[in-house]
C-alpha cells in the first residue's frame, strides 16, 4: 500500500539517507531497525510529510504524495517524546485529531472514551498531561495517535523511556492493537527485542540504505553482513584472513567456516560464531583458551574467554580454567557493502 522509493536526504551537509526503498502491504507491521543517528526518525518524518526528501517518492496506493501536506495524509505518528500538548487535558489531547476532522462533539466523546479504554486509561481522562507518569503519558500518546483512525501508523521508538516490566507489558498490548486494527504500521527502534516482538518484517538500516529485509527469523538466521550480525548481537563476529587451505585464521584461532563463498587465499572475511553453538571438548572447529568471566543467565552460563570469544554453556566452569571449545557451525558473513 505504501511504496517508498529511493529516498535521499542529507543532514547538515552529510548524506543521511542514500536511497531507501521498501514496500508495506496491507495489515503488515514492519520494523526499521538501525543504530541511533541512522536516519530512522528522519525517514518517518519524510513519510509523514513533515520533511521533504531531496530525491525519491512516497506513494500510497499508487498515488504520489509529494504535493500533499502533512495534515492531509492521515498518517499517524507517535513521537519518541510523546509530544503531548501540555496545555490540554488527557481527553482533549486524544480528541485533537478528531476535532481536526470536524467530527461532531458527541461522537468525539464516544471515540475518545473508546480510545482511552483501548489503552486502559479511562480513569485519567480529565487529568493534565503534565501530571502523568511516563507510562501513562505513553498510553495517552498512543490513544491520541489511534483515535483518528489513520490509514498508516508510525512509531518512533515509543517504548524507549519505560522500565522493563512496563515495556514488556505495553509491547504485548501494542501487538494486540496492531493486529486487531489491521492498519499497516512502521515501527522504528534500535532495540531488537521490540522489533522481534512486533514486526512481521524487519528492515535493517545501515549507512543510509536498507541492507537487509526479512522476517525476524530470516534476519537472525541469515544475517546479510558483519554489521548486521554485530548490531543484532547474534554472536561473536571475528575478522580473519583466508589461508591457502581454505581455513580462516582469526585472532581467536583457526576456524573452518561453512562457507559457500569461495574466497581466495589472503582475502579478509568475517565469521559469525553463535554462542549457543559451543560445546566443551574436541570437535571440528576448536579453540583453546582460558576462562575469563562467567555470568549466570537463568538457562545457561555466559562464559567469556581470554581470546575475546563468549559462549553459552549449560554447566558452570571456573574462572581461570583452561577449556577446549568446539562449535557446531561457524558461519561466514557476506561482505559489508
Amino acid at each position: 500500500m505504501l511504496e517508498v522509493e529511493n529516498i535521499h536526504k542529507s543532514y547538515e551537509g552529510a548524506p543521511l539517507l542514500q536511497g531507501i526503498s521498501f514496500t508495506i502491504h496491507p495489515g503488515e507491521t514492519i520494523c526499521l531497525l538501525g543504530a541511533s543517528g541512522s536516519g530512522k526518525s528522519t525517514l518517518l518524518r519524510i513519510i509523514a510529510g513533515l520533511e521533504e526528501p531531496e530525491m525519491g517518492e512516497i506513494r500510497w496506493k499508487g498515488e504520489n504524495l509529494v504535493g500533499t501536506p502533512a495534515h492531509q495524509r492521515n498518517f499517524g505518528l507517535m513521537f519518541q517524546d510523546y509530544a503531548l500538548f501540555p496545555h490540554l487535558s488527557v481527553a482533549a489531547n486524544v480528541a485533537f485529531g478528531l476535532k481536526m476532522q470536524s467530527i461532531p462533539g458527541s461522537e468525539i466523546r464516544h471515540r475518545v472514551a473508546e480510545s482511552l479504554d483501548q489503552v486502559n486509561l479511562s480513569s485519567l481522562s480529565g487529568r493534565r498531561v503534565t501530571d502523568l507518569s511516563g507510562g501513562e503519558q505513553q498510553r495517552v500518546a498512543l490513544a491520541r495517535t489511534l483515535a483518528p483512525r489513520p490509514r498508516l501508523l508510525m512509531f518512533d521508538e515509543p517504548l524507549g523511556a519505560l522500565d522493563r516490566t512496563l515495556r514488556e507489558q505495553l509491547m504485548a498490548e501494542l501487538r494486540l492493537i496492531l493486529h486487531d486494527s489491521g492498519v499497516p504500521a512502521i515501527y522504528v527502534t534500535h532495540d531488537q527485542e521490540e522489533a522481534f516482538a512486533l514486526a512481521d518484517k524487519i528492515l535493517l538500516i545501515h549507512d543510509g540504505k536498507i541492507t537487509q529485509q526479512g522476517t525476524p527469523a530470516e534476519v537472525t538466521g541469515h544475517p546479510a553482513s558483519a554489521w548486521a550480525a554485530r548490531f543484532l548481537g547474534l554472536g561473536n563476529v571475528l575478522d580473519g584472513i583466508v589461508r591457502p587451505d581454505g581455513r580462516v585464521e582469526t585472532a581467536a584461532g583457526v576456524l573452518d567456516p561453512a562457507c559457500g563463498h569461495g574466497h581466495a587465499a589472503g582475502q579478509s572475511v568475517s565469521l559469525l560464531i553463535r554462542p549457543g553453538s559451543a560445546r566443551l571438548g574436541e570437535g571440528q572447529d576448536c579453540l583453546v583458551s582460558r576462562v575469563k568471566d562467567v555470568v549466570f543467565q537463568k538457562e545457561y552460563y555466559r562464559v567469556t574467554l581470554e581470546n575475546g570469544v563468549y559462549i553459552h554453556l549449560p554447566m558452570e566452569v571456573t574462572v581461570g580454567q583452561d577449556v577446549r571449545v568446539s562449535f557446531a557451525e561457524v558461519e561466514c558473513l557476506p561482505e559489508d557493502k
Partner: protein
Amino acid sequence: MTIRFRKTKNQRVSESANQRISEPQSRQIAESLHRRIAESLNRRIADSLNRRIFLWLPASLFLGFLFFYPLARILGLSLNVESFTEGNIRIAFSTLRFTFYQAFLSTLLTLLLGLPAAYLFARFEFRGKSLLRTLTAIPFMLPTVVVAAGFNALLGPRGWLNLALMRWFRLEDPPLLLVGTLGAILMAHVFYNTTIVIRLVGNAQTHLDPRLEQAARCLGASPRRVFWNVTLPLVRPSILAAALLVFLFDFTSFGVILLLGGSQFTTLEVEIYIQALHLLNLPLAALLSLIQLLCTLAFSIIYSRVVVRNVVSAAPRPAQVNLRRAKKFPERIFKAGMTVLLVTFFVFPLIAIPMRSVSRLEAARAERGEVQSGLTAAYYQELFINRQGSIFYIPPIRAVVNSLAYAGLTVVLSLALAFPVAMALKRPGSLERFLDPFLMLPLGASAVTLGLGFIISFGRMLTSPLMVPLAHTLIALPFVIRTLQPALASIPDRLRQAATVLGASPLRAWFAVDWPIVARATLSGAVFAFTVSLGEFGATMLVSRPEFPTIPMAIYRFLSQPGGLNYGQAMAMATILMFLTILSILLIERLRLPGTGEF
C-alpha cells in the same frame, strides 16, 4: 564466585550507540526517583518553604529598603484629610480615565505591531535580522527629548513626511498635523515598547518544542489550525506578560505625554509631577500616587492569577531548530512586508537624529522651505571643547564611560537579585502567589513621588553615585524577573536529576543542564537592564552629581539652552548614545557563553 561484568569487544561495540545518557534513560531513572521523593513529601514541604524564603530574601530586602520604605514615608507624610476633598477626587478620576484610555489603546497598537514582528524574528532567518531586531530595541533607551526630536524630524510640521507631501501635492500648509495629538502619544508608545513584545513573545516562540506542532500536523491540523490550537495557547502566557508590562509603561508614561502630546493631555504621572513639583500640592499628589499604586497592584494581581496559572512547562528546544529561511510565497510576502514596516517605523525616526547631527542646520533658517544642504562635523568637534569654560562641561568620553559603568552595574545587580526570585517562581507555592504581584510595583509607582520619598528617607546618602545603579535596578528588576521566569520554569527537573545521579554535584548539574537553557533568557534580561539604565528611566527620582555625568544628562543640558550649536551637540550625543546601544546589544547577543552550545 565473583561476578564481574567487564565488557568484551563485542559488547563495547553494541553499547557504543547507547553511551550518552539519552533522555529516555534519564526519564527512567528520574521516575524511580520521583517515586522515592513522593514518599517523603511531607517531610520535604517544610524544608522547601525555608529554601524559598531564602530565595526571596535578596530581592525582598532590596525592594523593601529602596522602594517600600521611602514610598511609605512620603505617602505617610503627604496623605492627609486634605487629599480626599471632592475636587481632588474629581481630578483624580478624570485623570485616571484618560490614563487608562491612552494606555489601553497604546498597548493594543503595540501588540498589533509587536506580535507579527515577534513571529518574524522567532521563525525566520534572514540577512540583517540581528541588526533589525536591535534597532527595535533602541527607542526603549532613548531619552524622550531625543525621541521627540526624531518624531518631529519625521512627522513634524516641517518634517520629511510633510515636506514631501507638500512638494508632491503643492500644498501651502503641512497636511499632517500629528504632533500634539493623541496620535503622536500612541505612536511614540508603540515606538518605545514594541521591543518588549518582540523580546518576551519572541523568546517564548523560539523555544517552543517543534514536535508539538509536528504532532498536530500529523493529527490533521492545517497550518492555521496548528497556530490556533497549539502555538497560540502555548505562547499566550508570554503575550499576556508582555501586554501587562507594556500597559504598565504606558500607564505611567511621563516624558512622552509631556513632550509629544499637547497640553490637554495629562496622565496620572504628569499630574503628580505638576501637583508635587510645580503647584507644591503634596496631598493631591499623594492621592494620585496612591491611586496609581493601587491600579498597578490590581493589574499585577490579575496577571499572577491569569498567567501564572496558565504557564505550561514544556521542555525548551534549541533556537536553531525553529528557524528557517522563508521559502513559500506567503511566507516571503509576510517577511518582506513586516521588514518594510519595521524599517519604516523604527529606522526612519532614528535616522533623523544622526542626520541632524551632521547637517548644517542654521543656514537653512535664512532660506525658508529649502531642504538643508551641507554636512558638518562641527557638532561632534564642539562636544570636546569647553568653549565657555563652564564647570559643568561634560566631556563626552567621561559621559560615555559613566553611562556604561552604571549600565554594567545595573545589569549585574538586577541579575543577582532576579535569579533567586525566578527560581522560587518555578513552582509557585502560596508564598510566591502572595509576593508575585508586588514585584511589578516599582514599574507602576510614580518616579516623582518615589524621588521625594528618597529625599526624606535617605538624606545625604542620596547624593552618592551608587544610588544611580540602585535606582536603575529598581526599574529593571521586574523586567529581568519576568524574562528569566519562563525560562527557568521550563527546565525539566529530570534532566538535572539524571546528571546528579551520574555523579555531578548540584552545581555542576546546574551548569550542565539549567545554564544553557537559562543563558539565553539571561542575555535577554541583561539587555533589558542595560537599556533601562542607559536610558535613565525615572531619573527624576534622583539628585544628580555633575561630577558623574551621563549621556542623557548631557543631552538634556544641551537642549535646555537656545542656539544651533547646542541643538547640534544634543543630536550628536544622542547619535553616540544610539550607536553605543546598538553595539552593546549586538555584542551581548553575539556572546557565546560557555556551554550554551546551540542555545
